[in-house]
């Protein structure tokens, strides 16, 4: 009897066991199991709490109306909470998930079979064409023309063919020089060893041809265009001929051993021009002399333009030596 009972139990277990197996095999773990780490978990909880605190601090700082250094506090709170969150992630990465090192084959390098089929499809699809080369040529021509047509409206952005305006400046004979505040320059007020910015009276100051740099030199020091410089006062375009920055440095007084002559210097790339010698380049990258504006003194003893610049103003382009400055 006991033997029969044993057989029955064994049989049932086997049957049930098989039925279990039939229902689906026991799931293999995909991610390797690891031991719990209570300390790391505690640190993580603490970090999450601190992130919450810092985020709340950010909201509180934002809500405060009169707080000095608010930007700094906001940055500290927000940046701090992100940094704490980063630390939390690192705790998870280092101590709370299993780091498995896996290996697998790189993806297939290529699929020659599919490549061949693609070629075949393309090739066979053209079976009804007889003059393939001509059709391709005509088709590319058509698409090219249409593409070009689609691009043409971009020309509305600006005057693409009209480069004439590059020669124009607001200066003309008789136009008065005024300073920042609109005050004319009296000859007596223009002193040596100093640097003035002048604008054309009654014209737009934001034009590249508008601003002037005015300096006064002893008339004997001038090497060229003495008739353009009444009382030794010379005026040049303030815009550097290299890269269009305003010339903001006047090297006067000079340091004899290294800088023997007064010079106008652009602070962007240090193109250096000689105000006593028609604005010629004496150092730096500029490829052209600074355009000079001839001056005259009117009956009230104030400075006026005696004409337009000696050449176009501003940075060089292909046509900069092909035309004169115009009003």
């Amino acid at each position, binding site marked *: 009897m006991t033997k029969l009972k044993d057989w029955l139990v064994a049989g049932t277990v086997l049957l049930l066991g098989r039925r279990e197996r039939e229902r689906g095999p026991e799931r293999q773990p*995909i*991610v390797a199991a690891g031991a719990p780490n209570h300390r790391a978990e505690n640190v993580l909880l603490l970090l999450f709490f601190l992130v919450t605190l810092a985020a709340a601090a950010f909201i509180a700082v*934002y809500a405060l109306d009169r707080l000095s250094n608010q*930007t*700094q506090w*906001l*940055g*500290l709170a*927000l*940046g701090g909470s992100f*940094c704490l969150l*980063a630390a*939390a*992630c690192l705790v*998870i*990465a280092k101590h709370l998930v*299993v780091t*498995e*090192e*896996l290996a*697998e084959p*790189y*993806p297939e*390098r290529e699929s020659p079979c599919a490549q061949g089929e693609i070629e075949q499809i393309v090739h066979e699809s053209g079976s009804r064409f007889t003059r393939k080369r001509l059709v391709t040529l005509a088709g590319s021509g058509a698409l090219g023309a249409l593409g070009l047509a689609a691009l043409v409206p*971009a020309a509305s*952005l*600006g*005057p*693409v063919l009209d*480069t004439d*305006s*590059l020669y124009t400046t607001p200066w003309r004979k008789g136009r008065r020089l005024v300073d920042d505040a609109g005050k004319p320059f009296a000859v007596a007020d223009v002193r040596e060893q100093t640097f003035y*910015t002048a604008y054309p009276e009654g014209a737009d*100051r*934001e034009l*590249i041809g508008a601003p002037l740099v005015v300096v006064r030199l002893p008339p004997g020091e001038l090497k060229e265009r003495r008739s353009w410089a009444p009382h030794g006062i010379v005026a040049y375009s303030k*815009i550097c001929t*290299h*890269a*269009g*920055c*305003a010339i*903001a*440095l006047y090297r006067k007084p000079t340091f004899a051993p290294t800088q023997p002559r007064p010079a106008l210097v652009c*602070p*962007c*790339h*240090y*193109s250096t021009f000689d105000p006593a010698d028609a604005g010629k*380049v004496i150092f730096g*990258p*500029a*490829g052209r002399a600074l355009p000079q504006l001839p001056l005259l003194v009117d009956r009230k003893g104030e400075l006026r333009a005696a004409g337009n610049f000696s050449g176009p103003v*501003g*940075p*060089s*382009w*292909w*046509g900069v*030596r092909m035309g004169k400055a115009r009003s």
Partner: protein
Amino acid sequence: MVGRADGEGALVIKAAVRFIDQRTGTAPMIKKTLRYIFPDHWSFLLGEVALYCFMLLVATGVYLTFFFDDSVSQTTYHGPYKPLDGATMSHAYQSVLHISFSTKAGLLMRQTHHWAANVFVAAIILHLLRVFFTGAFRKPRDLTYLIGIGMLTLALLEGYLGYSLADDLLSGMGLAIGYSVAMSIPFVGANFATLIWGGPFPGSSSFWPRMFIAHVLIFPILIALLLTVHLVLVASRHHTQFKASKRETERQVVGVPAFPAQAPRSLGLMFAVFGVLFLLGGLVQINPVWLWGPYHVGDATNGAQPDWYLGWLIGALRLVPSWDFTIGNYTVVPNPFWGGVLFPAIVFGIVALWPFLERRFTGDVAFHNLLDRPRDNPWRTAIGMALLTWVFLTFMAGSADRVDVLFGIPYSRQIWIYRVIVWVGPLLVGVITKRVCEELLRGEQASAVRRSAIAEG
């Protein structure tokens, strides 16, 4: 209790997975993605840093657009910043002052945006150096590499547009230089520049809105598109890896799975990037535009320096001697072309074509999944270092004026020195690098021979 919570969590996960799979059919793909293998090396994180910077740039940038005014029509400032009270300025500049002084968290967002831009470009360049010196650009990843170069180009232009928009004195000077560089392109420069600016500098009033749209829409979308393709290509060809043991081969990739091991690391890096950038944005002043003042054509400031990633171009513009190339009255090459167009074109040209040049000269057309150490390829490392030295010395030349002010070394003397060493330096560095690489390899071979001799007894 714990058991019950776990059970509920499992049910939620089960429901979510089923919901997604039944509607998208992506369960197999998601499963594969979760177990995607990341080879492990710190230098592989540089590209990720750039990605997270881009995300933060978009977030902070969107915030800034809500307050920025893209009009350059002039107005008179009367605001909390007293030194500029009564100054004539554009609405654009005024709105940047408004963001900085009158908008809560505005300055934090603006400064974080600017810092993120600087770190973004830095991360891209470091990533590029890593990819270059380890040969990660070789087939099948040359296309991925080219897309990366495209993103670097866009990032530089995008950064330039960004700090130009503020219309402060420095940004105006930067635009004047950009205009001059555009004008200097042989034969078509003037037409191109007047087309873009809508007339001679400072251009038409619609130039600012155009620049704004380019900065906040066109360039970000282009970068995001290239970024997507870049990442898809990386994933489809899988990561490269160093040969750390016998398990890493050209056919088999070894590393940690995306989930759970890699995910918290990447997220941690992302939050760390955000955190550091917000800390910088809050605590470390950057581009205090209120100190520069508004831009007017006739104004300039001394000691002008662009954002760091354009320093190599300002250096190049400063180093070129006074020389416009003319034929008769026709100016074929205006001066800014040499430093502003030709120099970056050569650098970018060499960098972009390098995978193809290397393939041509070495005849190596094989697939490469294993990375080189820099010493493994002395020629590549030497040429890369020479190019880097060329760019770096030019970059240093861009700060010669600051060195003059800080250390009293005359500017013109420094420029003459740089004009010589930008040519000699790269040659020297190239030769030394090649020699060092070869010696390192020889040393390894020698010690390997010694080891096997000892082993044989």
